[in-house]
């Protein structure tokens, strides 16, 4: 059964703990440049937004299609996309084809690397302090997302109710 890392970007605080932990576990070095999960900071309409991004385990993987050395395959146990270090030639075709920009050629190794989900126990999920990352079975993803949405709806309703019940300050429109 395949697993995926679910990213809830609304919760991300941009602390980049996942990058540090990932590079420390997989590359034995604290270097966010060599991490397999990256947090992108974007500024839209003056509002800061952090977008963690890693391999999304596509069903039709573009990286697998374009690889000239047939180095990309699926791990039979976790279902994660793996790049064979022996077969990879470092042509970075996969990084150009990936719609998320998840795999990249590491300049130290000269080989392409991608999220391997740490053999079924992702470090980034463990260290994430704000709960933006979670690890779930691929067929449970929809349920997890729905549950999150419902939870958000409930909290929003409660907040609305609180606003309705609380006394409003004078001189303001009730909207």
């Amino acid at each position, binding site marked *: 059964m395949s697993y995926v890392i679910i990213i809830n970007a609304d919760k991300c605080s941009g602390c980049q703990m996942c990058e540090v932990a990932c590079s420390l576990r997989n590359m034995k070095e604290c270097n966010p440049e060599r991490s397999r999960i990256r947090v992108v900071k974007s500024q839209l309409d003056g509002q800061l937004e952090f977008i963690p991004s890693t391999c999304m385990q596509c069903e039709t993987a573009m990286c697998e299609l374009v690889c000239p050395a047939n180095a990309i395959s699926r791990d039979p146990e976790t279902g994660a996309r793996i790049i064979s270090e022996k077969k990879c030639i470092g042509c970075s*075709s996969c990084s150009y084809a990936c719609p998320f920009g998840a795999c990249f050629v590491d*300049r130290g190794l000269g080989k392409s690397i991608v999220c391997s989900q740490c053999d079924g126990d992702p470090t980034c999920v463990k260290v994430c302090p704000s709960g933006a990352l979670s690890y779930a079975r691929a067929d449970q993803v929809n349920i997890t997302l729905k549950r999150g949405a419902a939870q958000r709806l409930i909290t929003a309703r409660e907040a609305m109710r609180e606003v309705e019940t609380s006394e409003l300050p004078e001189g303001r429109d009730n909207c």
Partner: protein
Amino acid sequence: MGELLYFAETTLLWIVAVFFLLGIGWRIFFFIVSIFRSRTFSRHSVWHRFLTLVGALIPFHRAVLKKPMYTAIRYGFHSCIFIVPIWFSGHISLWEESRFEWYWTPLPDAWADWMTLAVLGACVFFLARRIIVKAWLNAGISDFLLILITGLPFLTGYFLAHGTLNSIPFFENYLWYFHVISGEIMISMIIFLFCRTRLKMETCVGCAACVENCPTETLEVYDKDAFRFFRYSHYQCICCGSCVNVCPENAATLSHAISVKHFYRMLSKDVIRDVELATCERCGVTIAPKSQMGKLEGILSANDVEMDLLNYCTRCKKMISRSKCGFDRT
């Protein structure tokens, strides 16, 4: 005339030997210097470099599968070139007569004969190949000269050992000197012999896989103003064939080149290829060679995959994919 030929046999031989040893020392010295000067020195360990070189000497790697017949001829030719002059019985008897009095077990004469014929046959094959596919290999005059200089000592040696041309008086007297002088030319040519990587303009897409896999950083790549340049430094190349192995387009070829110019330009680098880079549609950063993008687009459209994010940089892809598919939104 006689004095001149005697000079070729005695003094010139010593000059050639000293020249050869000094030249090889010079080559090794600048090989080490240029390797330590390269920027990405720490990428490959010395052990990995050594293994690559050994692996290149053993003919069982991917380049063999690409051209099995040609590789077999190449390996046979090169091993014969080394074995025949060293283990030929006539040469060993000369060493024995000399002041060194060295002796080692010679090769059987019949073997040496067949190996010489194999070298000559391979020379003819290479010459024919150069002439027939000249445009493809972009061969110059020095490539033909290289084959002729290599073949001549073997041709004269074969005739000398068999006495085939003894009926002609000119050759009976002077063939020996032809053999000696052509051998001396060949030995002194070795130090001007460089390996040269060529990237075929039509098929190379500029993916830089050869650069990533070069164990000695002979090939280098740098991006400048929407162009990607490939640089090559001839003193570092150990002719291991890694670039030929990995090239997904079969565009990289290795060939010999005799060049006096390369010998004294020790630490310079030649630009051997430049490709245009595509830019990100959103932020204008250069991302990848245009030809490689075209190739990827072809593969993806052949597999009916939507590829509207192909022409964006990694950072923009991440931002667009979040706002577009909203995989984390309600």
